[in-house]
């Protein structure tokens, strides 16, 4: 190994020797910086001729030690002078631009504007999809069947196991908790009403929506986002293929169609779970459960549940695609937008659910 950087003071002259490179400097930087500062204060002349390697990191260090100017007398080789000159030639640093402090009002305004901007984007995307739908109705040959069925499979069929598992467990939990309460009132038989209405009308759709937003929504945003980062979307556009028809429409339609089916499936499994728990807890026979269900839960509830499913699916896909299309080409933005997409999708689902609750409050309640 070559010797590291050495600094000696010889009657008013700072003599440097050894290798002055970043790798050699780093291990003893603190000591060296102190020595250099002391030398700069005491020595008027500097001798670099014994230095075997001088790199630009060391040159900057020296330059900083000298306070940004050549020392009164400097002995250095041609190459070393060249390196130092390069450091000297750097333009004086412009002060970093000061960021104006933002008042809370401006920040709030920004948030509101961003929300409006996103709303506008969502409406515009929706309009584009409608136009694409009209276009496809007139040119049925261009309908992207393959993408549609692939999305249906990915977002629908592959979500069956996990939604069944979650539904089953939720069914058991609710049934078990309700049973404990009902028992104290002796109102055991109402378990069917409670489970039926809550699961079919409310829990099933919302549960599936949350699952699907996390599962398919994030996947859609990430996929479209990466396609933007790698310029695949631009490549599609160059071939004259509409990105909305080929990428977004199949996703939105597939999820709108798959969600009601998933809701039906999950609600059914949740009811089975509830039925099992009711049997174990209250000794309510499954036969009685199935018999009573249609009377306790008017069919309008099922319609509402399925309609919710379709609307939720549409909203999730639309939100996910919208954010995917706005990912900026860097990894940070990709992760930020995926997070935003999922959060926004779930929030939208809850808001829409509340609207459903308000507008359908007179529909589907059993007459007792």
């Amino acid at each position: 190994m070559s010797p590291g950087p050495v600094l000696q003071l010889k009657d008013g002259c700072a003599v440097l020797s050894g290798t002055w490179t970043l790798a050699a400097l780093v291990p003893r930087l603190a000591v060296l910086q102190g020595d250099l500062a002391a030398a700069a204060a005491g020595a008027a002349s500097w001798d670099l001729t014994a230095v075997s390697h001088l790199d630009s990191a060391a040159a900057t260090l020296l330059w900083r030690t000298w306070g940004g100017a050549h020392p009164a007398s400097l002995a250095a080789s041609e190459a070393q002078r060249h390196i130092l000159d390069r450091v000297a030639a750097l333009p004086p640093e412009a002060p970093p631009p000061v960021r104006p402090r933002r008042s809370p009002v401006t920040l709030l305004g920004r948030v509101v504007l961003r929300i409006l901007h996103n709303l506008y984007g969502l409406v515009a995307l929706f309009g584009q999809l409608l136009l694409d739908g009209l276009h496809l109705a007139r040119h049925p040959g261009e309908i992207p069947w393959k993408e549609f069925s692939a999305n249906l499979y990915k977002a629908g069929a592959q979500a069956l196991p996990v939604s069944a598992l979650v539904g089953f467990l939720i069914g058991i939990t609710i049934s078990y908790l309700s049973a404990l309460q009902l028992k104290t009132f002796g109102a055991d038989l109402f378990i069917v009403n409670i489970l039926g209405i809550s699961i079919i009308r409310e829990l099933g759709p919302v549960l599936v929506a949350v699952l699907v937003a996390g599962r398919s929504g994030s996947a859609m945003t990430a996929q479209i986002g990466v396609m933007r980062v790698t310029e695949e979307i631009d490549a599609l556009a160059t071939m004259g293929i509409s990105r909305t028809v080929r990428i977004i429409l199949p996703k939105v339609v597939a999820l709108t169609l798959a969600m009601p089916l998933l809701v039906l499936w999950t609600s059914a499994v949740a009811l089975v779970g509830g039925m099992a728990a009711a049997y174990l807890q209250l000794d309510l026979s499954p036969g009685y459960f199935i018999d009573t269900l249609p009377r306790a839960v008017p069919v309008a509830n099922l319609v509402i549940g399925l309609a919710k499913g379709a609307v939720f699916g549409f909203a999730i896909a639309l939100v996910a695609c919208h954010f995917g299309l706005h990912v900026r080409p860097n990894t940070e933005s990709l992760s930020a937008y995926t997070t935003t997409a999922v959060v926004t999708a779930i929030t939208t689902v809850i808001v829409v659910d509340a609207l459903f609750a308000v507008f359908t409050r007179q529909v589907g309640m059993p007459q007792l």
Partner: protein
Amino acid sequence: MNAPVPAIAMRGVWTRYKETVIHKDLDLTVAPGDVLGLVGGSGSGKTTLLREMLGLLRPARGTIELFGQDLDDPDPLAQRAVRRRLGMLFQHGALFSALSVFDNIAFPLRELKCLDEAWIRQLVHLKLAMVELEPRHGRLMPAELSGGMVKRVALARAIALEPELLLLDEPTAGLDPDRSDNFVRLIKQLQRELGFSVVMVTHDLDTLAGLSNKVAVLADQHIVASGPLLDIMSVDHPFIRNFFCCERGLAALQQAHN
């Protein structure tokens, strides 16, 4: 004095991706201070070879030593120490897309964890100036750069730590001829000042003739010839004949000598 430790020593290296054999019993040595131009057809495994030198890829068989240090050494500290001695310019830049140009170059410097921010700023601006970029370019994000600028920023990042070994994957592809000449001049100058070794993959004869003092030809899954450019050109091998196909090669050589 004993012979200096070679910067890179690859011995009997075999590489395969699944069934496909990319390198078969390949030997390559780079002496300190050498500027080695690595040429070979597209898809012949040049990038793969560089990745093996970096330790990003393990060869199926054979050994690779950097500065006498075996890359299979399990000690993570030794691994990091040897990695810090080399800089790599990736074929497609491989800039961190979430960081600005400035932060990309500052990143390896900050990782040293002992330089103060003012020093780092000065060093970054120095590197930017070396690759002919202006300080204001430091605020751009990688996605906002042109292809040639990506190359230059990547080079600035590769030389940020003042490496002893620089690996360049097609450094001048995508640069205009003027920039590419300047690039050759810059590397040459740095190489003279710092005496580092360079391994450079290139398809550009001007760069090859202007910069390298040795050439290695990768064909038929191993190094078929290695030595000074003039010696290589007289080797009788179909790839070499095609690559330097007389007039083209001679013209470039003429240029370099003038």
